[in-house]
């Protein structure tokens, strides 16, 4: 509503600027046409006299020049007619018509044009104000999150975690050069890590349109130095060999990945394709396994015999429980522990773990909510004890 009042005020001011001179009985400043021309030629004559006074022209020249200026002056003033200040009937009618034009055309045109193109309901949205708004994670979209992190990093570029978070987002958005920059910064600030190095390499490769160049190769090799099994690093290095025309080397490299990978590793499909492309034997399909597909550890587990596997899982769950008890952890990790107990059918320990989790996360209502939701889903111990 206020915006329409503002518009009305602006329109009023504009119309008034026109109406005021129209309503005046006498025009404020009426320079007389004849008068202004007379002044112009008098000025010219004065100049001629001044030149004569300085000895620039002879008396005869002065007379001739003055005569010419005077002739023009007479001609000009005889033509000029002073504007009329009359308030006779036609003049009044004209004023009324002009006022009507001003009163109607200004607001009507403005409203018509603004109505066609304006968006009166939209407020101004300066970025700083938007970033200061309290964050409601439910409404946070990727772009906004990225903007917030970028703003944060612009102020504090040494926050490695921020770069770590941005990397995958940039990758998904196809901003490979930005992703490479983000991971390079994360590496610089947080230190080398095989996953980060491999991700950096991947971003560089994508930025080069799929070609593995020197910098990317360096990153992959460093990653392998830290974790000789890292499949992503191995895969891209194999690609590099393939791109260089080293078919035999590429085949060997792909076969090496297959050898080092657990069966049913998700990347095996792609590797198999490449392997066939460079003339290798297709990978033998193996029995699918249900547990934790897609996770490296899960795939490794799947390879174990039944009893060993249960023992191994039990051991991992114990390890997780011990770590969470000792160091604490996020709500997600606690939920994972609860699920593990639930899967193993150990409800008692699940209940104990739930209590421990509530205690550990007491300071964080959002985490407790997550926890409660998960517990309810698994049919574990009801509401949290109130303190």
């Amino acid at each position, binding site marked *: 509503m206020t915006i329409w009042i503002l518009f009305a005020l602006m329109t009023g001011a504009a119309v008034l*600027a026109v109406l005021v001179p129209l309503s005046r009985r006498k025009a404020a400043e009426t320079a007389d046409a004849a008068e202004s021309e007379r002044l112009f030629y008098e000025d010219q004559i004065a*100049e001629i006299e001044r030149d004569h006074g300085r000895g620039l022209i002879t008396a005869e*020249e002065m007379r001739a020049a003055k005569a010419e200026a005077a002739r023009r002056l007479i001609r000009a003033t005889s033509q000029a007619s002073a504007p009329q*200040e009359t308030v006779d009937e036609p003049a009044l009618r*004209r*004023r009324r018509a002009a006022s009507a034009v001003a009163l109607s055309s200004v607001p009507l045109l*403005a409203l018509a044009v603004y109505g066609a193109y304006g968006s009166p309901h*939209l407020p101004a*949205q300066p970025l700083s104000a938007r970033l200061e708004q309290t964050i409601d994670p439910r409404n946070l979209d990727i772009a906004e999150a990225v903007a917030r992190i970028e703003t944060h990093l612009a102020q504090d570029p040494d926050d490695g975690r921020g770069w770590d978070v941005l990397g995958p987002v940039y990758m998904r958005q196809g901003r490979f050069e930005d992703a490479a920059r983000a991971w390079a910064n994360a590496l610089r600030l947080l230190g080398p890590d095989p996953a980060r190095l491999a991700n950096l390499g991947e971003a560089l490769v994508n930025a080069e349109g799929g070609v593995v160049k020197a910098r990317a190769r360096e990153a992959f090799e460093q990653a392998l130095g830290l974790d000789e099994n890292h499949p992503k690093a191995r895969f891209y290095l194999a690609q590099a060999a393939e791109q260089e025309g080293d078919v035999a080397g590429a085949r060997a490299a792909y076969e090496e990945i297959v050898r080092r990978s657990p069966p049913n590793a998700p990347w095996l499909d792609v590797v198999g394709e490449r392997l066939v492309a460079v003339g290798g034997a297709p990978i033998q399909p193996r029995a699918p396994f249900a547990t934790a597909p897609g996770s490296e550890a899960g795939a490794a587990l799947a390879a174990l015999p039944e009893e060993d596997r249960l023992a191994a899982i039990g051991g991992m769950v114990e390890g997780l429980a011990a770590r969470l008890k000792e160091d604490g952890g996020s709500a997600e990790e606690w939920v994972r522990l609860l699920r593990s107990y639930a899967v193993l059918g150990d409800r008692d320990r699940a209940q104990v773990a739930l209590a421990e989790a509530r205690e550990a996360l007491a300071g964080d209502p959002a985490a407790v909510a997550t926890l409660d939701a998960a517990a309810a889903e698994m049919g574990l111990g009801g509401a949290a004890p109130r303190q």
Partner: protein
Amino acid sequence: MLIEAGHFALALALGLSVVQFLVPIWGARTNDATLMSVGPPAAIGVFALILFSFGVLSFAYATSDFSLANVVANSHSQKPFVYKLTGVWGNHEGSMLLWILILALFGALVAVARNAVPPKLRANTIAMQGLVTIAFLLFLLITSNPFERISPAPFEGQDLNPFLQDPGLAIHPPLLYIGYVGFSITFAFAMAALIEGKIDAVWARAVRPWTLTAWGFLTLGIAMGSYWAYYELGWGGWWFWDPVENASLMPWLAGTALIHSTVVMEKRDALKVWTILLAILTFSLSLLGTFLVRSGVLTSVHAFAVDPDRGLFILGILVFFIGGSLALFAWRAPMLKQGGIFAPVSREGALVLNNLFISTACATVFIGTLYPLALESLTGAKISVGAPFFNATFLPIAVPLLLLLPFGQVIAWKRGDVAGITSRLYVAAGLAILATVAVYAVTLGGPALAPLGIGLGVFLVLGAFNEVATRAWQSGSGGVALAAKRALGLPRSTWGTVLAHAGMGVTVVGVAATAWSVERIVSMNPGDVQTIAGYEARLEGVFPRTLHNYNEDVARFTLLDDGREVAQLETMKRIYPARGMSTTEAGLETFGFSQVYISFGEIQPDGSLGVRLYYKPWILLIWIGSVIMALGAALALTDRRYRVGAPVRAKGGPRGSGSSTRRPAATSAVPAE
């Protein structure tokens, strides 16, 4: 709310400019002072509204308000603040808003100016300015609305074209636009005169300050654009005969002719029809330039076909104003009372010659710029018209014009005699020839024509000051002190002429000196030394750097003179990730008027660097000369005649009267030099 208020202000300005057009012109027809008095407040109101609107858009840029489509498309939250502001006019919509703002500014200036403009002329002029404003406001609101909103608003913008993220952008377009659009007011004056059917010396004087203002700014704008291209594009050229540049050169040439023809009109009441035609043509060429740059027709003929709205709209405006004004001209011009015809050897004869040459030169630029476009749209054949064409057509016309310029300055009004002219110019001519010979001797074996160019420049500078000297030392009377006093007592418009012509000479010297520029393209590794025109450049190394919204590779050079370190130079290749574009920043080091210019290409596989080294002797004179020209215009503007509304007793005399009446006295005078 603020943003929408800015948008509404534009719509309101449209309504008000309709009043600005209709009411005063009606008042002038019916000779009604009250109706005519509506013009000034309406013009000021339109200006205030558009200024407010422009301020709001700038505010939106400054605060990165990404709810505006225009801000999203041309800004970025991490951009340096200055470039957020200059980004306002670094795009189509914003620059059109600036265009209109300046249009309204000139209308408001005419409304408040206190100089002695007859009331009817003023009313009609304000009305015509209102008509131009209406056309462009409609164009802005309908096809290029800068206040288009996006909801929900994105959180980041797409960044401004990196080439425009440069201090050059901050000043170049506003200067250029003040020049372009300034000629709208002379156009409005010409239309007003045609409507009223009354054109005389008074009209010429009323128009003159506006022409001078527009011309001065256009000169600065073109010079800035040229310098910007010189250091931003990375290959050392300063004028490319590019259609965009030609689009600004054409109104400049026509405006130059107009400045000279209004002098004749003011002094001799002649050349009326021609002057009016020139005023129309000058603004038409400004409009044409706007059309060429804004319609996208230069980028691609297809752009025109794919997105024809803007192009067709501007074309419509172009046809309406050029066609309409020429039709009015054809109808009214025969009714104008012709002034006298005059002797070939006279100041007015020389000015006619000047006009003839300049308009011919302008015509060759026009043909060279539009012929390829016309040919392609008619036959589909694609040709390029480049520097060789313009060198072969423009220069043969420009050089004689410049050569004759000092003669025109000493020639008397009404009738001059050749003997008198030569007696006052032989010193300047002699010195210029001496300079030519000296330069030729020093640079023996170098370019043969360049010393002649230097000589021409020297002749122009000396010829310009010749006027001051002869007028100060007239009749051989008095000593140095008196002469100096007389020289200082000369009207400012005389000094303005002197400066403008001398500035032209300085520019000519700078242009001629480019013939001696040295260029080397080499591969360099860190530690390598290359010599360029007596300097040694040592590549210290290349390192990456991240700043603001770009990453760059920096090549650092040390410049040595006889083994002594004289300067550190950095040249950069910047990559702007938001647009994926790269730019080259040349490294420049100035020695006097000369510059060493270094830029680099790509880093070779073996790690060496492709480097371009230039030595540009006296290159700065090109732009210094332009600044002097603009200063001349500014000085002439401060002449009492233009400031005082109703001069009762003018102190300064117009430039012409002194020389016209000096004639007999001067024949007896011994030339001062």
